[in-house]
């Protein structure tokens, strides 16, 4: 108590200096929280968008499909796998797909496209291209049992740029040609353009189409096999748990692999990891500067009190108590600095997590990261555990910075210290 009382009085003795040092500390922490919060928010947006643009939070496909991209490595019992996936509570949707490439022809023109066979009843709720928000004309695909006539050509849903390039309008007839499994003669199926989408991504808008999954299976001679099952989760954070659960649910002999988006969307994942590394490096620099500031303040306050500390030692204060005194002063600095920093940082965070930041306003334009267009608003995201961790780290930096001055004090000799002016 005596040590703490002395430390508190010393803290109050140079109010301005203490205030400035605490504020530097507070701003360091607040900046950390804001920067990390925005980065987390942006990354979450990128993941969400990446997952919706392409894959899913978790991808299941045949072992070897990723490397070979052929139709020999497919999912042969999609029903069983879909049923197993839908039993996992964190899975919002399990989506069957057939991905392949082919040639889309209209009249005299042809374009090489990537086509995806989808279940029209599920796809619009999980995929960006199929969503209502991205549709610029017509309607989305109908499944076979929604068609008016049995032998009517199926629907095809195409990108806006592709429609423009092939000069296609709603209801126009196109032919999709692809090589079936096993490398037989190319097969063709005719479709009628049902709708047009625009995502802002050139690869999707110019070179991709969606068709009912049955047509894709027929075109590729897959029978009931499919090339991938995408799992959409309630929360992106549950990926690890779902991957484990899914791996456990699939028997070894089915020769399937279960990939988290971090592997399926490796480029996006690397971008995020790199961005995080940049953020942490920047914060490390800020922390070093804060640490040097604290070190300087504590050392200065100790050096200018050398005489006084010498008297305290002479009249019987143990060196251990003086060490604790300096550390207690640093601890007070840390507690006040962190409290103010949390106050400032969390206020900003609360504003940024509800109102958000307008990306266009901030960057003056749409921002493209790892092939994804970021637009609209970005929101700050922080987890309680990471806020606590950063606060503890800052507090530890303060205490570490005070170690040397405290150690120096504990090595003072009373007579020499009292001669100090």
């Amino acid at each position, binding site marked *: 108590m005596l040590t703490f009382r002395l430390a508190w009085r010393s803290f109050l003795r140079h109010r301005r200096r203490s205030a400035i040092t605490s504020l530097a500390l507070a701003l360091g922490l607040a900046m950390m929280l804001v920067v990390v919060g925005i980065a987390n928010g942006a990354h979450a947006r990128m993941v969400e968008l990446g997952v919706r643009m392409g894959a899913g939070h978790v991808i299941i496909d045949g072992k070897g499909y990723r490397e070979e991209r052929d139709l020999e490595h497919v999912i042969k019992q999609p029903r069983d796998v879909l049923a197993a996936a839908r039993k996992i509570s964190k899975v919002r949707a399990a989506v069957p797909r057939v991905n392949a490439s082919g040639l889309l022809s209209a009249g005299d023109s042809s374009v090489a496209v990537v086509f995806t066979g989808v279940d029209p009843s599920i796809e619009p709720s999980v995929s960006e291209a199929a969503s209502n928000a991205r549709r610029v004309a017509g309607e989305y695909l109908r499944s076979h049992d929604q068609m008016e006539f049995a032998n009517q050509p199926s629907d095809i849903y195409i990108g806006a740029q592709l429609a423009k390039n092939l000069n296609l309008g709603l209801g126009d007839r196109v032919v999709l040609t692809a090589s079936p499994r096993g490398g037989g003669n190319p097969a063709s199926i005719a479709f009628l353009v049902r709708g047009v989408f625009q995502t802002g991504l050139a690869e999707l808008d110019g070179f991709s189409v969606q068709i009912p999954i049955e047509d894709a299976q027929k075109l590729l001679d897959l029978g009931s096999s499919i090339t991938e099952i995408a799992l959409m989760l309630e929360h992106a954070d549950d990926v690890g748990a779902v991957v484990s659960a899914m791996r456990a649910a699939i028997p070894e002999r089915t020769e399937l692999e279960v990939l988290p988006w971090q592997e399926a969307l490796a480029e996006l994942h690397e971008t995020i990891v790199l961005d995080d590394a940049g953020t942490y490096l920047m914060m490390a620099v800020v922390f070093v500067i804060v640490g040097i500031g604290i070190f300087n303040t504590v050392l200065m306050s100790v050096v200018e009190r050398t005489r006084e500390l010498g008297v305290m030692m002479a009249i*019987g204060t143990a060196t251990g108590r003086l060490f604790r005194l300096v550390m207690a002063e640093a601890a007070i600095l840390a507690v006040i600095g962190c409290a103010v920093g949390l106050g400032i940082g969390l206020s900003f965070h609360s504003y940024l997590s509800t109102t958000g930041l307008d990306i266009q306003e901030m960057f003056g334009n749409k921002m493209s990261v790892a092939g994804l267009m970021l637009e609209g608003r970005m929101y700050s995201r922080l987890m309680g555990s990471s806020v606590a961790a950063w606060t503890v780290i800052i507090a530890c930096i303060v205490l570490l910075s005070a170690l040397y001055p405290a150690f120096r004090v504990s090595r003072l000799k009373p007579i020499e210290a009292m001669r100090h002016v």
Partner: protein
Amino acid sequence: MSESVVEIENISKVYKQGSVEVHALRGVSLTIEKGDFAVLAGPSGSGKTTLLNLIGALDEPSEGRIALDGVDLSHMRSGALANLRLHRIGFVFQAYNLIPVLTAYENAEYPLLLQGVPVARRREAVRRVLDAVGLSGFEDRRPSELSGGQQQRVAVARAIAAGPALVLADEPTANLDSKTGTELVELMHGLKEEHEVTFIFSSHDPKVVDRAERLIRLQDGQLVSDERRSA
């Protein structure tokens, strides 16, 4: 019949100043009796402050032996010495004696807090010593709000608060005007009479030297005279 508080046997102190050896004390032997009001006098450089620091366990002799209350100070570790200073010795230095962030009351209380004296006894002891040095009513003042003489009185109060075996005062009047200095010496003399505290001063101030009951003169690190005088 007197008992000794400090026994000094043939001590020497050599400092190294760069490559030069300075012999601050050369073979000094001395015994301080309980109830002494002794002044170590001599010109500057005579070794009086060095001797006082050695008696106060703030420094170690190069040779010889010092015992305080029969306890040999040689080979004691710095922690044990700090503890000994806390419990057995009161200090009054030239100036800037006090902890600036503590009030007069808290400064006088400080050694008692370190000793872990219970609150009731602490309060009583601090009131008593502040009263004895004539500073009742100044309890809540910080050192910066006290005059130089008042600050030295608080230092005296702090020195005697815990009932030490002896009080060491290193040039306590050096920074005071002559009237205040005289008052301080009179105060300490009165405390010696009333509370049977043993005082050792180092000083060349005539006000202190004149009041000495035992005058120990040092020159060039050697004891040149030791005379007892009636009060």
